């Protein structure tokens, strides 16, 4: 079994709308899986179903090939988007409480928490009430609580909101380390740059349906439209004269005496043929394929559905 989580044709209805419509996803083991989608698409509902907070109306979920059962909650760590702590409770006490609810033994949890608190510079706050902590510190505490019981599956819903750039890096490093140590991570966010940086696989959910799923690199390749960005110096004749049967000039601009052109090649044309053609117009300085960002793919896919 190569997938840690398999969601098979899950449908969930609420009183006045369908939150998930026949959604299936496969989360490969030891991968970082991006769950993308606009607000209200059904991501949180799917995450809650995987966490067994709510049940699906139709469909099944498998955890390492077994049907998802209540005891699996101890193997999952969940950092929800809407997260908080008891304000009047002491930080250490509270972390211990939540760790015990995940099934950890008191003494083990305490020892392990002290280590993590030390690592995140939180140890002096152990006996302070939560309300005395800054928002960033509270987020750190929550992050620690989520990963403390060494879950096989981690679900982070907008994990970086509320963190400053330095702590975001700290967190990203930890997430990579968790993956290296064998954890599988489902990562839900609107921040597409972090998706590109972190995710191996993604699923895009829009209007309760999964509209896109797969390896990030392959998806980007798939969305690449055979467009190339070429910088040319010493133009000898206008690029408009390019052979229109095979090439299409989409854009050109002059920058510091260089001409930057975006050219699309038609089917069956290789990049070498493009270079041979462009060489006739001037001196090629640089050449690269225009690969869409996840952001563009996201916007394109979502807006196509409107």
């Amino acid at each position, binding site marked *: 079994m190569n997938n840690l989580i398999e969601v098979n044709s899950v449908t969930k209805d609420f*009183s006045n709308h369908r939150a998930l419509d026949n959604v299936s996803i496969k989360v490969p083991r030891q991968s970082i899986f991006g769950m993308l989608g606009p607000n209200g698409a059904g991501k949180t509902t799917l995450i*809650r179903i995987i*966490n*067994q*907070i*709510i049940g699906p109306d139709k469909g099944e979920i498998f955890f390492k090939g077994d049907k998802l059962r*209540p005891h699996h*909650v*101890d193997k*999952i760590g*969940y*950092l*929800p988007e*809407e*997260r*908080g*702590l*008891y*304000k*009047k*409770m002491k930080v250490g006490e509270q972390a211990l*409480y*939540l760790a*015990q*609810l*995940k*099934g950890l033994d008191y003494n083990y949890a305490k020892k392990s928490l002290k280590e993590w608190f030390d690592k995140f510079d939180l140890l002096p706050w152990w006996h302070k009430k939560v309300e005395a902590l800054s928002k960033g510190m509270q987020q750190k505490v*929550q992050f620690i*609580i989520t990963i403390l019981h060494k879950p096989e599956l981690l679900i982070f819903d907008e994990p970086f909101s509320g963190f400053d750039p330095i702590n975001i890096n700290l967190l990203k490093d930890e997430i990579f380390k968790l993956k290296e140590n064998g954890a599988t991570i489902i990562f839900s966010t609107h921040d597409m740059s972090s998706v590109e940086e972190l995710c191996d696989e993604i699923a895009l959910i829009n209007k309760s349906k999964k509209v896109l799923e797969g390896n990030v690199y392959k998806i980007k390749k798939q969305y690449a439209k055979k467009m190339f960005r070429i910088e040319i110096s010493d133009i000898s004749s206008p690029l408009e004269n390019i052979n229109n049967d095979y090439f299409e000039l989409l854009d050109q601009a002059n920058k510091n005496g260089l001409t930057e052109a975006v050219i699309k090649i038609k089917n069956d044309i290789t990049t070498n043929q493009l270079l041979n053609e462009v060489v006739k117009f001037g001196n090629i300085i640089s050449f690269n394929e225009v690969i869409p960002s996840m952001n563009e793919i996201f916007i394109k896919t979502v807006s196509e559905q409107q």
Partner: protein
Amino acid sequence: MFKKIFIIIKREYISRVKKKSFVVMTILGPILFAALITLPVIIAQMSDSDYEVGIVDDTDFFYDQLSDGNNVIFTHIPTNIDNALELLRKEKFDAVLHIPEVAFESPSTLQIFTKDAVNLNAKIHIENVLKQEFESLKLGAKGIDEDILRSIETNISIQSIRIQEDGMEETDYPEISMALGIISGILIYIFIFMFGSQVLRGVLEEKTSRIVEVIVSSVKPFQLMMGKIVGVGMVGLTQFLIWVFLTLVIVLSVSTAMPDMFQFTPDEQVHVTSSQMMNSEKLQEQMDTVQQHDTTAGQVLEALSAIKWHVMIFSFIFFFIGGYLLYGALFAAIGSAVDNEADTQQFMLPVTIPLIFAIIFGQMVMQNPSGPVAFWLSIIPLTSPVIMMIRIPFGIPLFDLYLSAFLLIAGFIFTTWMAAKIYRTGILLYGKKVGYKDIWKWIKYK
């Protein structure tokens, strides 16, 4: 799974018991209760300074007949009323009683003069002694011997005996039953309200602080809800037991330290009541008082020992817990459905009305503890915890008790089931104004 509920119960219990407000309430509560019981007695004793009444007796008959008592001291002033009033102005006396010549024929001509507002107790005492004097004078005038009159005076106090199902006879003491019933009824009412709203606030806190989604990824919403209800309930029981214990300690130690405080001298009581004796009904009342007084201590003891304490205590704890669980679930459901405390109002009303209803109808139930109102209100689970506790001290058919207990258990299973449905949807729903229609839909979700 029970291990996790236990962890939740433990947190709910310890976090509340450690709070300053709990400690303060737990200590202050019994002091307040004890004060409520002992203060009036202490204050009454403190205000009992002697009240000097000067008598100007134009008849020269009464002045040495009036007996002191009730802190009233009579002094004869052998002068006319004008001089006496001068003495009053100089504050030689607290009051001056004027008995004019015509007082024999028309007692309404009696007058009492004071500088400050008249002391009501003193006035009553004076009226009492004068009344006795006038009455015996009149009896003498009609040729009736006072002793004969005394000998025909009869005290009637019907002993009420209830025939038990097992054929035993049992003496009834409605006054004691009433007091016991209303105290336990009100206690249950207060307990449900106080700790029910703690459950509500606790659920609301988890929802508004957004910790709830973290927790329900580890435990079932039902476990979280039950953990909170049970934990808070145990806090309530703890506080209640400490209150009972401390109140007893305080009252007992005060009454041992000042044993006189709780004793009334027979004379005073008789006089006070007889002063208000205007008609035969009141006369009867007075006789009761006299009768009761003679045997009060014995009777109260007898009455208290007649109460079936094991039934009383067991049913108190049962209806205490049952009623709390029933309402606690409803309070938890309300807390989960709203976003802030202000929004709770619209849902609180239908939950609190039955409780208030029970307290209001408690009066009626006491007057007729086996009537139809009492029966139905003690059967319906929403009112039964309060009403049953009012009924039980009067003695209750076992059938009623079992039926009520059974329905209460069924009732709290039902409200818990319903609350769980509302709760699991409500806690995850933020920023939406929820109405009854939404809640109905949540209950219908499978």
